[in-house]
């Protein structure tokens, strides 16, 4: 057993008071000369035994009352293992400080985190007089990725210094994640018999107590219940916001920065969009958004920002230099600076590059599919190599190109097929057109590979009718995917339904969701099919471009539109690889020939970090750089607290190859951008976003988690509103016992005294 207020145990000496009163009572008496002593002695003899018993019972009850009172106010609790009654308290304090980025909110001289640190400092000072070497302190930083900041310390001075050094993280708040870590730490507490005091300093941000879904909400409630009912554990909550602060602090922020273009090059303007959101109740008539490219201010735009609303600011910019670039959008500072910036890392090309392989060179050459295609792409300012014959196509220099086009190619060697797969897997675009040269069996074997290859479907046979059959049935596009970039523009252009097709390759084992357009033949045969392969994309056109099978598509505006839209789409690479969120891991794959034993990552807050790379195997043509480290292969475990293996801070990350000798310079390989949440501008994400500073009332926490027992700072030692004592609340039972003793004493005193009246 232990006591929350062991000093008050001295009140147990009050148990001597009834004895002292009894003795004093016997000392104070009157003297009477008495004649009828014989009767008195007889009466005494008759009642003495009973009187002694009654007096003893009353005396014991009164002693018990005093002792029970002393024990009750000393707040006893049960320990797992019995220890001495007056042993030192042996308390393990868990100081949990919310350092999510909302704690950087500053309205006045101090941030919320400053207030939290001050409160924690006061607490440590208050602990100081009673803190013994048996007591321990663990400091935990609360966020979506909580961490044990000071583990199991026994020196208050070092804890104070550590607390003073806490800085805001770039994480969101998640008390579900924090309590998982806390519960683990409490469970691991070295001595199970220790008392545990949990002190949580937070700005009580509502989003920190929200759950992603019902399952998580249920687990959260169970977790809080479990922690509350842990033996000898008491939880205190400290509101680290200024007294009298509004429940929803003013805040606005940038929640998105994105580009419209699939391909960003130096030849055309790139359109940037910056999404702003205002969580506060105040509307801003004009918010200025500044754009910076590679650190230089390049433009600005203004927008009104109504209360509880979002706005998007658009800005166009033409890059002058190809290569990696880093774009920043910044709005006017408010009370929370961290979410006033947004970053975007881009790779700018000088122009698109395409390699065309012509499987059926025609004479004259302009009658071949490849030539028609080349003609079309030329108008798109695409740098085209070829057409080359399949024999000339080595597939060795595919990395120089953004798109590879295979027109009516009979077959591919195994080596070439593998190289093409590799090219696509790493983000390249592949456009395939069919024709009478195509060797169905070879393609299925080497390119389809039972669905494992890049071919979107298994080639079956040639459908439709050849020119010998007259009248020749014509087919049209029956349906197409209007949302796909290749067909999106038809809202303003000629309809693809006018295109006429006579022959096409029939496919099987096609993913219906991957079909972009189908013909109106009886089988509704796919005409355009897409397959995403690795980081790249493949689009298969099941017919020809020249007049072999169709109505010579080269002259058709609709087909031209499709090709113009499709090519940049195929060439585009997912910006997600370079534009990351907090906790993501940077992964960058490079050809083996660019290997270097070490690279440097220039980080926004931690300076330059060296990355050592293992030499790739001799047969490996690629190697991958991970930062901060390769992601763990362990599957997420619901029982384990969330651990951030990825980026910790938002900002610009630059991957640099250090110079190999004094004469060369460091080479910038790529930029990476890490942004704060949210990932998207979806309303539910915005409301749960850390930028939403709406507070949650402690009473609402109690209502939502009725089994979560905690004290709120300022409530002092008052019991929580819906308290039901666990094992740490024996004092309540003692109070009940005290009331029982008092009632019993009153009754017995009346009952025994009844005879005296």
């Amino acid at each position, binding site marked *: 057993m232990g006591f929350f207020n062991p000093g008050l145990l001295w009140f147990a000496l009050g148990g001597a008071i009834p004895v002292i009163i009894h003795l004093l009572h016997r000392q104070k008496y009157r003297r009477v000369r*008495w004649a009828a002593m014989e009767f008195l002695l007889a009466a005494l003899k008759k009642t003495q035994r009973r009187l002694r018993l009654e007096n003893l019972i009353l005396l014991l009850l009164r002693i018990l009352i005093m002792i029970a009172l002393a024990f009750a106010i000393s707040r006893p609790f049960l320990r797992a293992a019995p220890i001495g009654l007056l042993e030192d308290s042996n308390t393990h304090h868990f100081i949990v400080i919310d350092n999510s980025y909302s704690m950087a909110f500053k309205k006045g001289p101090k941030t919320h985190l400053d207030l939290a640190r001050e409160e924690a400092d006061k607490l440590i000072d208050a602990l100081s007089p009673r803190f013994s070497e048996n007591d321990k302190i663990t400091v935990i930083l609360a966020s979506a990725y909580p961490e044990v900041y000071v583990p199991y310390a026994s020196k208050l001075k070092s804890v104070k210094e550590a607390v003073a050094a806490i800085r805001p993280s770039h994480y969101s708040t998640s008390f579900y994640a924090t309590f998982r870590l806390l519960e683990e730490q409490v469970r691991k507490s070295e001595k199970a018999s220790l008392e545990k005091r949990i002190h949580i300093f937070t700005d009580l941000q509502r989003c920190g107590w929200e759950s992603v879904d019902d399952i998580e909400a249920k687990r959260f409630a169970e977790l809080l219940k479990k922690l509350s009912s842990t033996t000898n554990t008491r939880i205190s909550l400290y509101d680290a916001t200024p007294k009298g602060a509004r429940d929803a602090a003013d805040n606005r922020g940038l929640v998105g920065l994105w580009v419209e273009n699939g391909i960003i090059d130096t030849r055309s303007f790139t359109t940037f969009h910056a999404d702003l959101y205002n969580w506060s109740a105040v509307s801003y008539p004009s918010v200025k958004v500044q754009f910076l490219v590679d650190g230089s201010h390049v433009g600005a735009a203004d927008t009104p920002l109504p209360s509880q609303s979002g706005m998007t600011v658009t800005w166009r910019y033409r890059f002058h230099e190809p290569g990696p670039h880093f774009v920043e959008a910044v709005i006017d500072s408010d009370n929370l600076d961290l979410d006033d910036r947004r970053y975007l890392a881009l790779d700018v090309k000088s122009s698109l590059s395409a390699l065309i392989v012509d499987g059926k060179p025609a004479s004259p050459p302009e009658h071949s599919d490849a030539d028609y295609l080349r003609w079309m792409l030329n108008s798109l300012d695409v740098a085209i190599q070829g057409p080359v014959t399949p024999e000339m196509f080595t597939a060795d220099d595919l990395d120089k190109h953004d798109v590879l086009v295979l027109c009516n190619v009979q077959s591919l060697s195994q080596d070439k097929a593998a190289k093409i797969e590799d090219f696509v897997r790493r983000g390249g675009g592949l456009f395939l057109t069919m024709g009478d040269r195509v060797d169905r069996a070879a393609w299925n074997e080497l390119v389809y590979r039972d669905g494992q290859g890049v071919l979107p479907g298994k080639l079956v046979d040639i459908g439709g009718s050849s020119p010998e059959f007259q009248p020749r049935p014509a087919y049209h596009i029956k349906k197409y995917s209007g949302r796909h970039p290749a067909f999106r523009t038809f809202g303003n252009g000629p309809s693809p339904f006018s295109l006429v097709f006579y022959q096409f390759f029939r496919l099987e084992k096609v993913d219906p969701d991957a079909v972009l357009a189908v013909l109106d033949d009886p089988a509704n045969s796919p005409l355009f099919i897409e397959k995403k392969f690795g980081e790249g994309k493949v689009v298969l056109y099941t017919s020809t471009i020249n007049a072999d099978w169709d109505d010579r598509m080269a002259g058709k505006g609709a087909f031209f539109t499709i090709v113009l839209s499709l090519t940049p789409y195929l060439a585009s690479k997912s910006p997600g690889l370079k534009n990351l969120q907090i906790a993501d891991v940077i992964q960058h794959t490079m050809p083996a020939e660019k290997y270097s034993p070490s690279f440097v990552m220039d980080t926004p807050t931690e300076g330059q970090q060296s990355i050592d790379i293992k030499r790739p195997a001799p047969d490996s043509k690629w190697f991958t750089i991970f930062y901060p480290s390769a992601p763990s292969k362990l599957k997420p475990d619901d029982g384990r607290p969330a651990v951030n293996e990825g980026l910790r801070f938002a900002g610009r990350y630059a991957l640099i190859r250090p110079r190999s000798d004094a004469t060369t310079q460091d080479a910038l390989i790529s930029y990476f951008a890490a942004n704060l949440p949210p990932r998207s501008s979806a309303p539910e994400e915005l409301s749960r976003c850390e930028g939403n500073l709406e507070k949650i009332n402690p009473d609402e926490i109690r209502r939502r988690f009725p089994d979560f027992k905690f004290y709120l700072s300022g409530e002092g030692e008052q019991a929580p509103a819906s308290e039901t004592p666990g094992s740490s609340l024996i004092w309540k039972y003692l109070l009940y016992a005290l009331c029982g003793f008092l009632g019993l004493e009153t009754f017995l005193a009346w009952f025994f005294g009844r005879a005296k009246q």
Partner: protein
Amino acid sequence: MADKKPNFLDPKVLNKITRLDLKARHIVEGFVAGMHKSPYHGFSVEFAEHREYTPGDDLKHLDWKVFGRSDRLFIKEYELETNLRSHILLDCSESMDYGSGDSTKLELACLIAASMAHLILRQQDAVGIVTFDKEVRSFIPSHSGKGQMNAVLGTLGGAKAENKTDLSTVFHQLAERFTRKGLVIIISDLFDDPDRLLKALQHFRHRRQDVIVFHVLDEYEVTFPFQRMTMFEGLEEYPKLLVDPRALRQAYLEEVDRFVSRIKRGCVLNSIDYAQITTDRPLDIELTKYLAGRLALGRW
């Protein structure tokens, strides 16, 4: 204490008593011009009247002279006024020295004794006084002379409560000394063993003494009203006792009640008058009540 010496002839008390006709329960031998009838009809010297013979009458009282003159049988009757010989036995043991109010039990007992002596002497009867504790301390023989009252009062004035009681022994001794029939008035708190006490009283009855017992008790002895912790310092060599009187009250009162009930029952069984007089009650009313009750018995 000297200033508070009671007036034994309290006019108020005596006035009330004299309005009552004290009639002795038994006709004792002796004669005074009073109202006491002799139980010895036909034995005395003073002729009273004749009455016709009825079967069963003793033939020795036949008046043969009247039979010779009138040939009728008459019985001669005599009426003898006797002189009551009474003794007042006053308990002067230490226990009689207790009094919760203005007077002690002994003072009350003296007042009773003086009142009774005065009453008896006014009726021309003889009265004596005996004071005792564990033994007889003074003995004034029964007499009806003019100076007898002074002698009685002198003895009462000299009475001091000092020693332990031994009622039964003293009563046995006195019973042996009272050879003639008479009246014995015992004034005591009777704090003795009830069995032995009742045997001693039976001894008086056996010696043909009419016995009146005035059981004198203090108010506190019958109510035991103590509240606070009290050290009871026992008289008559009893030890000191520190007790919470409230806790003992009920048991004490039961003991007292049991004792009084036993004495009362013993007195009734032995045709002894018993009157309990407590210090809190007015003596005149108590004596008047007792004497009126005795008269109401109508057996004399």
